[in-house]
Structure formats: C-alpha cells, structure tokens
C-alpha cells in the first residue's frame, strides 16, 4: 500500500486518505462552454509520469493538499509545507 506524505501528518497509508484525482482548475461557471465544463468534470491527462494530484487526509488532519506523484514509479515530490495557505488543489 502506497505511503502518502501528508504535509501535516507525515507519511500515511493511502487508505487513511481520499484520492482527489488530478488537479484541474475550475472554469468560470458563468462563461464556461459545455466542452470546457465537461473537460473539467471528466477529462484527465492520466500521464505515465509526473502528475499533480489532490489528496484529502480523511483519517488524519482533514486537510486537502496537492502533491506531485510519478504514476509510473509512485514516487512523490515537493510536498507542500504545513500551513501553506493554499496547499490545496491548483
């Protein structure tokens, strides 16, 4: 089982967290075209390699954070620092 480095709680079993998926910016709901909005809802790059993704530390600090993971090796890098005001999804 993957160890996910929560910036607050430290490395935790992935079952302690909820996977929030690929980071993606929310389009302006008043101007987004159906294609743009549905790309936000459903389309993911799903690269074999580095990916910025969101996790929710559901059984720990209850913070959302975003972190880069190599989907081919499961290596993590650049965890946000605790207290980072916008440690969440980009």
């Amino acid at each position, binding site marked *: *089982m*993957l*160890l996910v*480095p929560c*910036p*607050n*709680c*430290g*490395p935790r*079993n*992935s079952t302690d967290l*909820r996977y*929030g998926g690929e980071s993606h910016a*929310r389009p302006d*709901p*008043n101007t*987004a075209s*159906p294609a743009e*909005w549905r790309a*936000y*809802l459903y389309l993911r790059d799903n690269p074999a390699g580095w990916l910025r993704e*969101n996790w*929710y530390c*559901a059984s720990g600090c*209850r*913070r*959302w954070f975003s972190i880069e993971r190599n989907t081919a090796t*499961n290596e993590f890098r650049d*965890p946000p620092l*605790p207290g980072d*005001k*916008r*440690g*969440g*999804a980009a």
Partner: protein
Amino acid sequence: MTMSRQGVQPTEVIDRAAKLRFRWNGKRFSGFEGDTIASALAASGEQIFSRSMKYHRPRGILTADYWDPNLMVQVGDDPNVRAGHRLLESGMDVRSQNAWPSLNRDIKAVNGLLGRFLTAGFYYKTFMRPQWLWPTYERVLATFAPGGKIDLDTPHAYHDKRYTHPDVVVAGAGPAGIEAALAASSAGASVMLVSHEHSVGGHLRYSSAAADQAALAELRTALDASDVEVLTDSTVTGRYEDNWLGIVQRNHPVAVERLIKARAKTLVAAPGLIERPYVFEGNDRPGVITSGAARRLVNLWGVKPGERAVVFSANAEGDAAVADLERVGTEIAAVIDGRTGGSISSTRGSSRAVDAVVADGASIGADLLVVAAGWTAPTSLLNMAGDRPVYDPAAARFFPSDPPSNVLATGGLAGDADLDGLRQHGAATGRLAASRAAAVRHRLQARTARALPVDGDEPAWAPDERAPLGRDPHPELYRADTHGMVDMSEDISSKDLVAAAHEGYDSVELAKRYTTATMGPSQGKLETVNTVAAIAEARGETISEVGTTVWRPPYAPVTLGALAGRMFEPVRVSSIHPWHEANNVSVIQAGQWLRPDHYGDPAAEVRNVRRNVGLIDVTPLGKLDLRGPDVPKLLSLLYVNKWMKLGVGRVRYGMMCAEDGVVLDDGVTGRLGEDHYMMSTTSSGAGGVWEWVENWLQTERPDWQVHVTPVTTAYASINVAGPKSRELMSRVCAGVDLDAEAFPYMTVRQATVAGVAGCFMWRIGFTGELSFELHAPAGHGLRVWEALMDSGSDLGVAPFGLEAQRIMRLEKGHFIVGQDTDGLTLGPSTGTGSLIKLDKDDFAGKPELAWAADRSLPLVVAIQPDDPDVVPEEAAQIVRGDTNEILGRITSSRYSPTLNRSICLGQVEPDLAAGGTKVTVLLESGERIGATVIDHHAHFDPAGERLRG
C-alpha cells in the same frame, strides 16, 4: 516403493519418545512428535495419498514439503491441508480428498482411459454449449472438484490481525536469510525473520554433512541471542507498494492464524530455491520423488523412501541424496548423471515397482526413482516489487533483474556459492538493508512535521557494494524424450501444453489460463518453468524468448479466515440505544450505525404518530456546526437555492448538487445566531458532505472565514412528531415559547429540555405531522428521551422506527437522495426544480443545471397502483404497454396504513409525469399492473396543513 522408519538420524526433528495416534481414512495410525502428516504416513508404509484431479491417477509423495501437490488432505473439518507441511497432532482425523469411493480403488480412474477427451481446454470445449445444460455441467464439475469438504456447521474460529513497522523483514530463513537478519539486527535495525518452515535453517536442516550441522547450530544460537523476531511456520504472502507486506503466521499460540500487516523499510527476499520436477512419461507415479524429498524423508524424519532406487542426478543435491539413501539401507540400482547426458525416458512396472527406462531403452528394476533435475527460483516477491527476472540458460534458472532498491535478494535466489559464500552474501545484504532502512526511517520521521525532530541530515542511500554470488552451471533439464505431467495439481501434461500452443495459445499467460497449468495449490512453484519450457519447445524458441509468467500475490495460498480475520469496523449507536434495546427494538444496520427499524409493528407506529405523538431517534442525521461571517456565502455556493437573507432563528430546506448537476444531498440548515449556523445532512451523506464542504473551503475559497465542526455525534437527535407533540414538548421544555405564532414552522429555537441546557430544536416535518426535531447534548440524550416518554404516557406517546418514518415520508412524497435519485439524477428531476436559482452568481453544478433547464429530463413522481393491495417491488420497471420498453421505474413503495392502499414514488419519462397519466408497472413475477401518476408528490395532506399547525 515401500517406505519405512529407520534408526535414529542425527539430524532428525522427531521425538521418538512422543508417540502420536491419529486416523487416516478411518484407520488407526501413529507417528512421532515432529512428524508431518505425510512423514508419519510414509513411515507407516502408505504410498498413495490422493487421486489426481482429472484422471484420478494415484499420487504419492513428490516433494514432501509445503508445495507437494499430491499431499492435500482433509483434517477434521479443515479441507486442503498440506500433509507435507502440517505437523502431526494427537487425535487428528485425516482423510484423503478427491478419491471416491476409496483411495486405492478409484472408480473415476476410468477417466484415465478417456484421457484423449480431457485435453487442453477441456473445460472450455466440453462445457460451453448448449448453455442450457449449465446446471448439469455444474453438477459434473462439482464431482470432479479436487477440494475437500466444507462443513457449514464448523464453529467460528478466532483469526487475528497485527500491524507492525519493522525496519527490515527477511523472507526466508536459510543460512543467507539468517545471516541477513543477524547483520541487520547488529547494525541497529528492528528485524523480523520469517520462515515458511517449522524451524529455521533452510536446506541445512536436512543436510547430514557435519559442517552444515555445525553451521546450523551456530546460526540458531546466534539468533537466540539476538533481538531478531523470528516467525516460523509463517509466510510473506505479498509485497505491495512501499514494502507493505502481508505475512500469514500459522502457528500463533491462540489464533488459528494471524495476518500480519508489516510496513517494512527494507525487504530481504531469501526464499531459497525450489526443486523442479522433471517431465517424462510416468513422472507422476507414486515412487517418483525429488531429491529434496528423499533427503527430507531420511534426515528429518528417519524414513527410508524405498528399497531399491534409481537416482537421476544433475547436481550436488542429487549426489547427496545418493549418500543419504545408502546410509538408511536403500540399494542404489543406478545413478544416471544428467550432467553427462544421461536421461530417464519413462517408468514402467505395476503397483509398487517403478522401473526406470533410460535413454537406450534399457529398464532398471527399482521401487524408487529419485530425480534431481534442477531448480526454480521463486522470484514471487521480486515480481510483486515490479522486477522482471531474466533467464540464464547456463544456470538453467531465472535470476533477479533490477528490483527496487528497498528490496534486496540474497541466497539461492541471487546466485550460488558454498556455505561460507552464501553466509557472507547474506550478512552483506543484511548490513545494506539496515543502512537503507535507517535512511528510510530518517526520511519518514523528518517528513512528519509533528514527530520528534531527527538529528542531522538524512543518511546517504548506501550503494550496493556486495560481492555478487556466482552462478553454478546446470544442464537445462525440463522434459525427457517422452511426455509427462507438468502440473500434477491440475493434471496438465506437456502434451496438453504443446496442443494448446498449436491451437494458438502460445503465450505463457494464455496457455496458463487455457490449460489451467500453474493455477493449482502449488501456485506454480513446481510447474511454471516446466510450462514455459514446454511452450518454448512448441514454439521452437528459447525460454528467454518466451519469457515467464508474472508471479502475483499470494506467495502461498491464504485461507479466507486469515484474510477476514478480526475486523476493526466500528459499530455506532446513539446514546439512546440502550433504551431501544430494552424495548423490543428491531435494529437495522445503516452504514456503521445500528438504528431502530421498528418496535414490533411499524403500521401501528405510523397510526400513533398520525393520531397522537411519537418519538424517533434520528441521531445519525449529519450535523455540521458552521461559524463565521462567510457562512451565508458558503451555503449559497453549496446549495442550489438562496441563503443570503436567512434570518436568525429561521430554517430552510436546501438541496445540494455536485458539479455535474447530479443531486448530492439535502437537508435543512438553520441560523442559530448572527454568525452561527447548523447544517443537517442525510444520515448516509454526513461524512461525504463534510468532506465536500472542506474541499470547497480549503481549495476553492480558502479566503472565506468559516469554521466547520462536525457535531453529528455531539448531539442526540429526537424527532417528536404528531398532533400532540406541542403538548408533549410543553411539558419538558423551559425557556422557549412553543406557541405556533412564536415558534412557527421552519424556525429554530434554543431551549432547556428536561433540565438539559444547550438543546436546540427546529420545526420541520419529514413525517408530515406537527413536529419538533430536538437536538440535545449527546451525553444527555437518554435522559431527554426518557423524560419525553414519561411525560407523555397520557398522550399516547410511543417510539417509532425508521420503517414507520419511511412510510410516512412516502405518504408525504418526500424523496430520499440515493433511494429515489441515483447517480444520474439531475437536480430538476426531483420535481423541486423551482428551488434552483440560476440567477445566483455561482454555485456547485450551476452550468449543468442551467443547461439541464432546457432539457426534457425524467421526473420523480408519486404513483398509485390501480389495485390498492398490490405493492410493486422497489426497482420494478415502468414499461410501455405490453412491450419491454422501459419508461421509468418504481423507486420507493410501501403499503400506507393511513390511506389503506399501496403508494409509490418513481422516476418516469417526462411525457408520463402529468397527474392522471396511466402507466404499466412490470412486477418481478412478470405480471403487469396498471398504476396512475398523481398530481403532486404527497399522497397524504398535500396542502401540508397538519405540519404547519
């Protein structure tokens, strides 16, 4: 072949003073403490232990260890016990499996004659068509199934789980594994050494060489003096991401088995090598055994494997078997040397004779044929770590390729050396494992902000400077010039594999699935490489070109008991639960919650609420305490309706949609104070909505000032419902004016109830009656409940459960998210589309809901069957007339004790949604009934006069 017990061997593990009596197929037998079931039976002269799966051929000892496919037995109510591994216990009732009516005279052995019909893909070809014969096929297949008998009355046994975080786990306790554990421990690492066998030592255990025995004694003494935790009769069954290991401990003193979940910082894989059977005609006959089996029988249990043996040897282990056999008086008829081109073609003879036919056609009389044809490297744990081992034809086995740097191989898996060489490699591996574990430990601790600070920089990741082990040359011996069994568990011959390859199943992964080779109880440990070799031969390629299958977890089969084990799922009950239990409650499990379903008669509970007053414990209702100046903005963002002008003391119903416009949750939120709100969610949505709220606040609106505190279990929640509820509340409440003018519908008040301060209550009405939903500090919930019950006895107060509540909400036509909606139900489909305020600047799901407004969507409607006594099943389909064209479905249905008729909610196509529309409902029975859509959701009191009173 006639096996028998001989004189005391210096290496034996049996205690001849401790005689154990047991039964084998009903007959009395005896053995010694330290015997396995198989060694005790072999010592008593038994030669047939099972019948093969398809052909029912007689099978005897092959490897005399855990992997032996022929030694699966039933012990009492325990099926599929490995008699080659399980230690004998006094009083065991051991029976053979898959041998009807008896082991020695098996009627199904006639299958052997039908062999040509049971070829590759037999099951696929024979049992495919016609499909209507499947029940018959199943009966036939069941009688062929090789497993034991499951006793459904077996009492539940205790299986345990353990979680641990060792620095280093060493899988395998041969000389290299032990040295690795000792070296890692000396370097300061916490070490767990896991031995598949009953004692540590690996192949040293059954070596009669004095130097080996001295080394074994030395290693055991060192282990005893060390801090290494030694687990025997235990298996590392799986390696997962970041060295998360599953370890099954089979010899726990209390639990039947214990599943250990270990997070190791480094893993040392030292499983040794597994001796590979040789494929030739008759290689599955009783009396054909591996050299390891011969050596184990002689040296561990003092059993002479036969009177006159032919030994086919291609390595030192085979040569050592010759010496062991001679020592216990087995006559060596011939030694055929596989290194110099000698070969075995087939075996002949009837009953106990196992005459060996050699390459030139000569037959050598014998009752035992010992085969030492080579090794399989059980690279499973490396495979699971992502490694793809590579084949070396010069050594005739696979070797590790490039496992991740926190998984280190040593011992026979990594290469060959003399004993000192193996020990040195093991020790070097242990030191490397400890060093890298220290780096991992430092990193884990440094990354944990609130842990104790770690001193200094992270230790460097130690380079692998171990002197590599050599590779002994070994002839590639897989199949002789005849065909024989490749997979004895599944009765798959080399001929079957060649046939499969010619039919097009010529990749190993395909051939494996098509023939089921390697899929039996030995998990491919004996069969995989011979399977690969047979496919390679059929394709005219090398083993390297064909490649091997990827070994996946588990390394060894795991019982369902070990996996199920002790569950740590919490059970949640409200503080009022003891009262329910004392009052004839029937509970229903809802997620983790145990909730009152009813107290005997839900219909009576409904009638009492409609006539008098009832109490329901709704504690699991989700409750979020929201504080801060930006709460109204948050509510406006999460709900589809408007919230900016909710006054203090007011309550509003809200619906939430996800960003795709699908209904997510609903509930009421009340404003308790200037900057203080209480949000309620559905019981099942409590956790999800909290995470949803946190997601928005933390990621999209981090600048908003809102504090969210989940208070679901901080309050006991009681809905007091019925025409007499105000009278009842007036008897227990203080500090609040309950008058309809002062405390109207959809408002919230704080109060002291039954002497309990800090309660709040809101006037809402899921049941459709005048009702007060009361939330009291959880510790006082029972007191408040009892006060209500005691104060209202003259009013007819009675408890009601979820079932009565569900009936009443259905009478009122209130939809339940997840019951009457599903993962495709857009907000407007609930029939509450007017709630959705598209003129708000932003809210979750707004674009989808805006686009949905122009679309024609299915709608939730209330439906009444024309026959009031028929209650259609929930999920019954609404179809067009006599066709099967689906136009909708019933989502909720009950018999209403208030209206004395069946009532439903359903989702229908928009052109069926108008009141008065006739629809056809297809029942599960196939019967079609007529039903009518009614004008509004409420079957009862559509104007809502009762609840506003």
